[in-house]
């Protein structure tokens, strides 16, 4: 393979330097290709448009998976985080998730220098207006200044920017997010090349002046110092701040209801569909009338700023209404708003038009990642970014794409959901989306994925070596427990009421040889072995349907017994295997059995 390197010709061009674009461009560059990343504003690389935090339920899993593949997000947050916590400690080890508040300015700086430190990466501030496509294959992009850049693969990671429209009350303006230009032309180019777009909406909270908040009466939430860093490369983190909890009340709700007629959502000005799991405060007040209060977390955005993010108060009401209802909340009686909350509408590409590699089915060499695919969230974006970057690189190298299965990674679940189910609201990861949740834990992300990272060439030697060492320790401890005193402790540990700590005294000497982290992994493994093997059985049972391939030219229209809706769905998504077909929403088990009869086992 010969890599290109001139000022306007590259192996891979990544459009956008948000969370998806960062991972995509780093992956391609670190895998040895010449890559360019083009973004509208170089000061906003890795900008956190909404919440100044990384991780959270199921998202913490994604971050650790990205790290195990060789991505940057975990390292970045370990170094720039200012408060770290583990959620769900009591609900079971598989759904335990890590979350960190970021110093959002430091995070951006970290990411910018990460990009700059890669010699294979060219960094360009500009706006991409269109794609160049020849014979169904992408060949480059055209900038708003008219220059043309060429590449064998293009990865679009344009986030909320495509024909972005910001709403504050009934006032609106074009922007990619507050303070950034919108990308107004690229959508048209996508449509011209045969892609189908939809429109979504999301929103964010006002940002408050911390000097005008009275924290004295509010509940404080501290970070945890024994937090396990996101990246396996990192040894420790620093907790620098606390966050604070307050609540809305009846007066808040009344202030909101009074001005509902000035909400773009309720007047029908906003057409895009918003996320149900992340409703605006006006939505919550209207839909859940009986709820007397809603919880608000006050989170500081940076050590270098007094701006606070009131988590739970996303709104697109007019500015004066925002101030009104805010001031009815305890601690915020005298608050000043620095930046208003707003909603944004934007175009997305219906993700059912993608392959599992994140390459579009229609246009060869064109990859899409991040919010452009209908997702929401930094981690979801980064997860797709790294996969698109890896697969663009593998394609250019003439190798098979990296496709993670649903039982291997949350990333696999995420991409498979997008492609087989599509999405009509911004898609966010939940642990409940993963049917093999017990297998996909944060603690074993490295065991699950480091080998993939190594094989693609993205994972660095340092992280790989750490993983190997841990795997070794894990295996040693397991076999010790299995053999020591005829496996007495192994069996003991299986009981729900026994943990390693309670038998640690008896085994002290032996256990001391092992990392705390390894010990807890082993404990979990032993405890859950029964459940895990149950899930493994199911995986094997279903795996056989992966072998039933659906011919590319199968004509669904003429299969008796399939309803019109089913045929339409099949035609649109064109599943490649029976197991893919079975996951498409609206495809009934009966329809699957009909398809099964038409397929040959490979």
């Amino acid at each position: 393979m010969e890599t290109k390197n001139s000022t306007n010709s590259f192996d891979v061009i990544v459009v956008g330097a948000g969370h998806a674009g960062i991972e995509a461009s780093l992956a391609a560059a670190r895998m040895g290709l010449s890559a360019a990343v083009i973004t509208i504003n170089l000061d906003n690389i890795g900008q956190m448009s909404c919440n100044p935090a990384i991780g959270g339920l199921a998202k913490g899993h994604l971050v650790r998976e990205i790290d195990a593949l060789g991505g940057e997000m975990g390292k970045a947050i370990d170094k720039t985080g200012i408060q770290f916590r583990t959620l769900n400690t009591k609900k079971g080890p598989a759904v335990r998730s890590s979350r960190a508040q970021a110093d959002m300015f430091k995070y951006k700086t970290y990411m910018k220098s990460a990009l700059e430190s890669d010699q294979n990466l060219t960094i360009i501030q500009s706006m991409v207006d269109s794609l160049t496509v020849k014979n169904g294959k992408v060949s480059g992009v055209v900038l708003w200044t008219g220059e043309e850049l060429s590449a064998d693969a293009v990865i679009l990671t344009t986030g909320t920017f495509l024909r972005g429209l910001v709403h504050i009350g009934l006032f609106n303006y074009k922007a990619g997010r507050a303070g950034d230009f919108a990308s107004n032309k690229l959508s048209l180019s996508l449509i011209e090349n045969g892609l189908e777009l939809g429109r979504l909406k999301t929103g964010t909270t006002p940002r408050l002046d911390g000097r005008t908040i009275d924290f004295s009466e509010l509940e404080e939430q501290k970070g945890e110092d024994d937090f396990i860093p996101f990246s396996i490369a990192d040894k420790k983190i620093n907790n620098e701040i606390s966050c604070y909890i307050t609540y809305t009340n009846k007066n808040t709700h009344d202030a909101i209801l009074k001005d509902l007629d000035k909400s773009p959502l309720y007047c029908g000005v906003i057409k895009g569909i918003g996320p149900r799991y992340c409703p605006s405060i006006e939505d919550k007040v209207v839909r859940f009338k009986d709820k007397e209060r809603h919880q608000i977390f006050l989170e500081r955005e940076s050590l270098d700023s007094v701006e606070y993010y009131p988590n739970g108060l996303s709104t697109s009401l007019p500015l004066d209404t925002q101030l009104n209802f805010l001031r009815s909340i305890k601690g915020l009686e005298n608050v000043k708003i620095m930046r208003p909350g707003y909603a944004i509408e934007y175009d997305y590409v219906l993700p059912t038009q993608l392959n599992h590699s994140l390459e579009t089915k229609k246009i060869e060499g064109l990859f899409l990642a991040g919010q452009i695919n209908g997702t929401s969230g930094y981690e979801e974006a980064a997860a797709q970014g790294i996969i698109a970057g890896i697969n663009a690189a593998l394609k250019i190298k003439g190798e098979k794409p990296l496709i993670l299965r649903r039982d291997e990674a949350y990333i696999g679940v995420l991409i498979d959901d997008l492609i087989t189910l599509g999405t009509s609201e911004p898609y966010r990861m939940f642990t409940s989306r993963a049917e093999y949740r017990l297998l996909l834990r944060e603690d074993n992300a490295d065991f699950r994925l480091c080998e993939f990272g190594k094989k693609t060439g993205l994972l660095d030697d340092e992280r790989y070596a750490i993983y190997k060492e841990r795997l070794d320790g894990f295996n040693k401890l397991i076999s010790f427990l299995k053999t020591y005193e005829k496996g007495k402790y192994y069996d003991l540990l299986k009981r729900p009421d026994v943990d390693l700590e309670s038998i640690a005294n008896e085994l002290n000497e032996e256990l001391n040889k092992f990392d705390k982290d390894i010990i807890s992994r082993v404990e979990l493994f032993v405890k859950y072995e029964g459940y895990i093997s149950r899930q493994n059985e199911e995986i094997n049972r279903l795996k056989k349907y992966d072998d039933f391939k659906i011919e590319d030219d199968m004509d669904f229209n003429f299969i008796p017994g399939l309803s019109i809706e089913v045929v339409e769905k099949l035609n649109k998504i064109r599943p490649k295997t029976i197991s893919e077909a079975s996951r498409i929403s609206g495809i009934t088990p009966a329809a699957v059995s009909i398809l099964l009869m038409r397929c040959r086992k490979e």
Partner: protein
Amino acid sequence: MSSLTYEIDTICAISSPAGEGAISIIRASGKDCLHILQKIFKPYRKDFSDIKPRFLYTGRIFDLQTESFVDEAVCVFIKGPNSYTGEDMFEIYPHGGVFNTKYILEIILKSGARLAYNGEFTKRAYLNNKISLIKAESILEIIKANSLKTLVIANNELSGLLEKKIEKIKEDYIYMLASVEALIDFPEEEFENLNADFIKKSEETAGLIGGLIESYENYELNKRGFSVVIAGAPNVGKSSILNRLLDKKRAIVSDTPGTTRDYIEENLFLSNKPVKIIDTAGLRETDNKIEHEGIKSSHDQIKNADAVLYVFDVNDLSENEILTDILEEKKDNLIPVINKLDTFNGKDLSIIEKKLMRTFEFANGPIFISAKTGDGFDFMKKALHDIILKIEGSVMDDVGITTVRQKNLLVKSLELLNNAKDKFKEGRPLELISIDLRDGINVLDEIVGGVTGEDVLDMLFKEFCIGK
């Protein structure tokens, strides 16, 4: 099932019952239907090519091998997918003879169809997504129904009432799952009353599933019919009562005590209900080996009976230890019957009634009859009918399950639900409870079909206030 044969085969069968009738019905389904029909059916005054689906045509059946016409018949072609099986179908209504019907079937088989397996038309309807599994089962149950009750239950299943009930259970299940998932995926939210709600819901749902499981016992009971045993001392007229009920001389009657040795079982309808009626050997101490065996089996029959008619001779109400035991066991479902009313020579029947009620603790008052004249039989039947209705009482709700398959799945689902409930109460990890609930739903799904992860999220967002 091999996939290829399914696709190619056209199946065919005689759909009317065996034996002679006015007309017979032969039915076929599969992609060769039109082709086969064209070979064997010549409509009057029309070209075959003018035949329209869903219209009836009269014509003649042609035998290709002998090149002769063999019958005159009415025929209809139904184009898939708007047919019972979802495939192309035809039906032929020939004259209802045994030979000609079979011969026409042979002709069709020779023209490229194969004989259908039992229930294969319905199976294809299911496979082609025309009906759910549960509906397919109900159709078979309707065919097998032997009483109004079983027919109603099976029909309610067909019309979707059972499915609705299971859907309701599933919805409750999804609600519980959504509760657990809400607690897992939204740890920072405040959820009021969620714990109490969960436990309440799980108990309610367990009740619903339990109810359906029980409904199977009732359906089974209905299906096999109720059994009524006629018991009593020798020579009191048990066999005579049986004969009168059946309206024929089925059992030997004689004035020698111990005439009936082996029990005699017969079926009859009692206001629409199939009832199995069993005459038994008279109960007494005996040295006779054969009679002894007979009496032993009488006891077994009584034990398994749904209702017992315990017969006395009006002129001889001797006390009876054996009766006390039986009474103990059958209680509400035992009717004392005083026979040979025609021979009564005392003054006042009410004295007899009082004496009887004083001696035994009957739950039901005695019925006076005469097997010889038939007097009192209407009252006896009415009393019997009342008992049957009472037993059926728990099936008041005519929606229930009808197959062991459904029952086994429900039992499994209930077990998983109870696991989840117990774990929840014990405070075990929610992620494990979620697995039990999911499995429980999946098992339910095997009865009807399809829950997706999206269903859970839908419920979650509908029911819980969530948002960051």
